């Protein structure tokens, strides 16, 4: 199975609901990164949810980077975390996944889970709106620099 073209070593996935205010920050960041990052280095996806079918392209990447909003952080705060494949299954799993769940699928079904990072940004507002809050908008350039550095870091490893 090889339906999502991701031959680049890094796979960046921005996810969330673009109609729920700051939940759309993953898309906003991914859209911007798709313009900035060289295609030989990174493939960029924008998705509403993390679906099981993403496991296969993730398994082909050297590094996976997830970008999402997080209500637990201070608005505009950017957090970078290493994420591992889930070791305990989520019993209610259905049609959408967590980053750790997808990594486990990638490992168990397709033989490889890449190293992975989650970049979260503290959200101020999840109300119905197609726009980001001021705090998140201001923090977005910093988030983009951090993600770009994580992508370039892989390039250094492969040089």
């Amino acid at each position: 199975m090889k339906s999502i073209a991701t031959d680049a070593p890094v796979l960046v996935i921005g996810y969330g609901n673009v109609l729920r205010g700051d939940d759309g920050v993953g898309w906003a960041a991914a859209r911007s990164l798709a313009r900035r990052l060289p295609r030989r280095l990174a493939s960029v996806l924008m998705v509403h949810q993390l679906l099981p079918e993403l496991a296969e392209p993730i398994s082909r990447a050297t590094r996976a980077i997830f970008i999402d909003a997080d209500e637990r952080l201070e608005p505009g705060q950017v957090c970078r975390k290493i994420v591992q494949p889930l070791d305990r299954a989520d019993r209610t799993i259905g049609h959408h996944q967590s980053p750790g769940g997808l990594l486990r699928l990638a490992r168990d079904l397709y033989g490889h889970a890449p190293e992975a990072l989650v970049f979260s940004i503290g959200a101020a507002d999840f109300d119905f709106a197609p726009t980001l809050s001021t705090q998140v908008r201001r923090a977005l350039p910093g988030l983009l620099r951090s993600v770009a550095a994580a992508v370039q870091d892989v390039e250094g490893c492969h040089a």
Partner: protein
Amino acid sequence: MPRDIVIDPVTRIEGHAKITLKLNDGGEVVDAMFHVTQFRGFEKFCEGRPLTEMPSLMARTCGICPVSHLTASAKACDALLAVKIPETAANLRRVMNLAQMVQSHALSFFHLSSPDLLMGFDADPAKRHLFGVFQENPQLARDGIRVRQIGQTVIEILGGKKIHPAWAVPGGVNKPLLADDRDKMLAMLPEALEIAQRTLLWYKRVAASYTQEARTFANFPTLFMGLVTDTGGLEHYDGLLRIVDSKGDILIDKFPPERYHELIAEAVEPYSFMKFPYFKELGYPQGIYRVGPLARLNLVDNCGTPIADQEWAEFRQMQRGAVLSSFHYHHARLIEIIFGIEMMQRILNSPDILDKKVRARARPNRLEGVGVAEAPRGTLIHHYRIDDNGLMVWANLIIATGHNNLAMNRGVLQAAQQFVGGGKISEGALNRVEAVIRCYDPCLSCATHALGKMPLHIELVNSGGEVVHEIHRD
């Protein structure tokens, strides 16, 4: 003392629900209620919106089957414009509707129900889930992911995105199909067909181990309703309503779907936000009927594609008359996946599928319109009224899962009477009661026009109304 058992939440279905089982003094189950506990109210908040917004707005009813709502809504809007849309547009909508059915059936079968079938209803719940399938049968898991992905990709190619594509519009679709895109879709379908056939073979082998479940999972006489072609073939986009009884005899045939209200009425019960549609002629609640894959295969004269027709003929041999057990929804779902793939291949290979005329343009010419299509879970009805300015003044949606509401309630009662006893409910019994509901693949987000996922809650209640045993699942 009579008591109640509560199962809350019901797991591995789409939406939120709970079940109450009523016990008598002897601890036997005497009644069951399937409560749908969420509400959003799409019919109300669309009032005042222009009809041109309706397909996109109504697609938001659900993230699992948005294409079904998009299709039924666009058809209702076609009726308001009083246009006959170009044949190519109708065929393109057909392809997307079939792709939606394929991916939705794959989600239901592979992701939600295969853990029970692969590991057994009594298996350790710590293993009886999708990750357990990944470990026990990784090929089955990869197949499920791939079939769903192919269905989703067809939707994305046609509509620009997988979820909530704003592509079907009043009068047709918003862009013609390009040859490259057609070829991309056609290139994926043989693999999907191979997987579907392989999975059906596997299912037929394992289903033989579940005769008791097949005998007790909502196995009773009801009517069956769905759309058919004018020659009685399987149809998901257009067609005419047919109702058959439990013997398979046709009661209603070639009935214009826009007159659905002459056949169906809706009752309400205080314990659920989901309505209870019933066949008017038999009254409530005797007018119980089922829709969806099992109903469709029970009421057609043929499928209309070669492989699906062979499988359908074998399926109908299971029982004289209609196939009654809801356990066989799984089997019917797999046959419909095959049909959907074969039919997409046929339509995409037709010579006029690249025609550029894909939209009829008109102003509103009628104040009332009905759109009916077959969603994965059954017949979906959108009924709209507008004012002279084309603004919505009233809407009524009858959703596939809603049609099955009476049957789901009766099915839960039947399974509970078989598997629950002594005032307690074991894990295996709990799972079987849930699994009856899972056979219908209910989408409660749609049925209540609400948003959510579907955990379950079961309550055991005594005759004094006291909850004596309660099980929650998140």
